[in-house]
């Protein structure tokens, strides 16, 4: 960690919403995450969380978030308990989330929770003494994804401010884009939203950007939007968030990213995606220098290592 940064104390702090953090605090976390990279790749080892236990409670499916949290804890020498499918737990018998959290609180030193209800992590933090890290609450917040997205832009573009960033896809139900639009505004990025008319960014989020001094542009034309873009952030149209199948079928497949489309963009345009992708990015893009999404998924490990280390306590 850069020596000129004053050490901030995050021990015991919950990570619920990106809005709970100032820009200074976010910078501090991202800076620390950079130091974690050689430990995340396995190049270096340090058991700073040896003897510590993490509860990993996933009430909804997850691949990257769960695995990268668990990898992060293991890489730092800690242990992980928990579940990835609540059907084998007392939730099935009707146990409240509050009671499950009370148990995990007494079994571990930190809790990671993903839950289908918005606000679930905030509730969990009320019932736990140990720090709670939100791994996604329904269509609500996903702060660690937001941090790793910021980290990716920062490492690829060296700065966040004044980058022209296009957020594309399901901007209505997509939880990552809401937090991200807020955080990017906090850094003064230039935002353009591209989505089908029925999946536009909610006014609440647009107003938050405006309050931070950013006036987002909106267009339905992706070709136009990517012309001078530095970052194209693609999201999946999520079937599971749609109230009815008909609405989903109407909009799925509206936008497709392929090499033909990317010819309209800048040479150093980077394409990001929180993954999983379905059909929105053609596999032919994977081998181009534009494709950053797998690197972005890796970045989840150093960022989550930094967070676990900061909130549980123990520094590299």
């Amino acid at each position, binding site marked *: 960690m850069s020596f000129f940064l004053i050490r901030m104390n995050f021990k015991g702090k919950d990570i619920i*919403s990106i*809005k709970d953090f100032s820009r200074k605090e976010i910078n501090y976390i991202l800076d620390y995450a950079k130091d974690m990279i050689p430990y995340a790749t396995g190049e270096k080892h340090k058991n700073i969380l040896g003897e510590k236990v993490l509860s990993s409670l996933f009430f909804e499916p997850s691949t990257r978030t769960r695995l990268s949290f668990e990898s992060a804890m293991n890489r730092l020498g800690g242990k992980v308990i928990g579940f990835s499918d609540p059907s084998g737990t007392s939730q099935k018998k*009707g146990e*409240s*989330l*509050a009671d499950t959290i009370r148990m995990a609180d007494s079994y571990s030193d930190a809790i990671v929770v993903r*839950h*289908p*209800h*918005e*606000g*679930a992590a*905030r*509730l969990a933090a*009320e019932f736990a003494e140990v720090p709670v890290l939100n791994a996604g*609450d*329904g*269509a*609500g*917040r996903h702060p660690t994804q937001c941090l790793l997205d910021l980290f990716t832009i920062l490492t690829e573009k060296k700065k966040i401010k004044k980058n022209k960033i296009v957020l594309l896809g399901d901007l209505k139900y997509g939880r990552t884009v809401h937090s991200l639009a807020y955080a990017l505004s906090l850094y003064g990025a230039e935002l353009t939203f591209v989505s089908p008319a029925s999946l536009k960014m909610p006014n*609440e989020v647009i107003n938050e950007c405006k309050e931070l001094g950013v006036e987002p542009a909106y267009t339905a034309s992706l070709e136009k939007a990517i012309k001078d873009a530095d970052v194209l952030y693609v999201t999946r149209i999520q079937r599971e968030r749609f109230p009815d199948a008909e609405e989903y079928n109407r909009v799925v497949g509206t936008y497709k990213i392929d090499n033909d489309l990317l010819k309209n963009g800048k040479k150093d345009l980077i394409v990001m995606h929180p993954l999983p992708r379905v059909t929105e990015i053609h596999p032919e893009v994977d081998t181009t220098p534009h494709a950053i999404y797998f690197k972005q998924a890796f970045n989840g490990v150093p960022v989550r290592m930094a967070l676990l280390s900061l909130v549980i306590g123990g520094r590299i």
Partner: protein
Amino acid sequence: MKKELKVPRIKDGTVIDHITAGNAVKVLHILGIPRSTSSIVSVAMNVKSKFGKKDIVKVENRELDPNEVNKIALIAPKATINFIRDYEVAKKHKVKLPNEIIGIVSCSNPTCVSNAKEPVRSRFKVISKDPPRIKCYYCEREPEDIADRII
């Protein structure tokens, strides 16, 4: 000509005046009346005033806790609280919305954890006092129809 009062003056107690017309019953609900008091309570609705129509609530022989009454600013931001002692107004102040509203309004988001079977009460942060605007502490959603969401 002497103005005729629709609800008789009270000797001692609390008068909540300038309640947004039509909201008196909701005000009583927020204050837990009649459950919270055995005093005589009079309600006048749609009373003509300088600023149009208003509702009035009079609670006899009891001075309500202003911190409690302040919660009604959610649906009656212009209301005033008057403490009456021996037929005179001894103290008068405007309601002031507290910074947090707990257990009064339900969240408008059906998938908010506060609407699930969890041992918590609804909780909102006040983001604007006039006009009243609140945001759910749990899911951060802002209900537009506060008056319709009173529990």
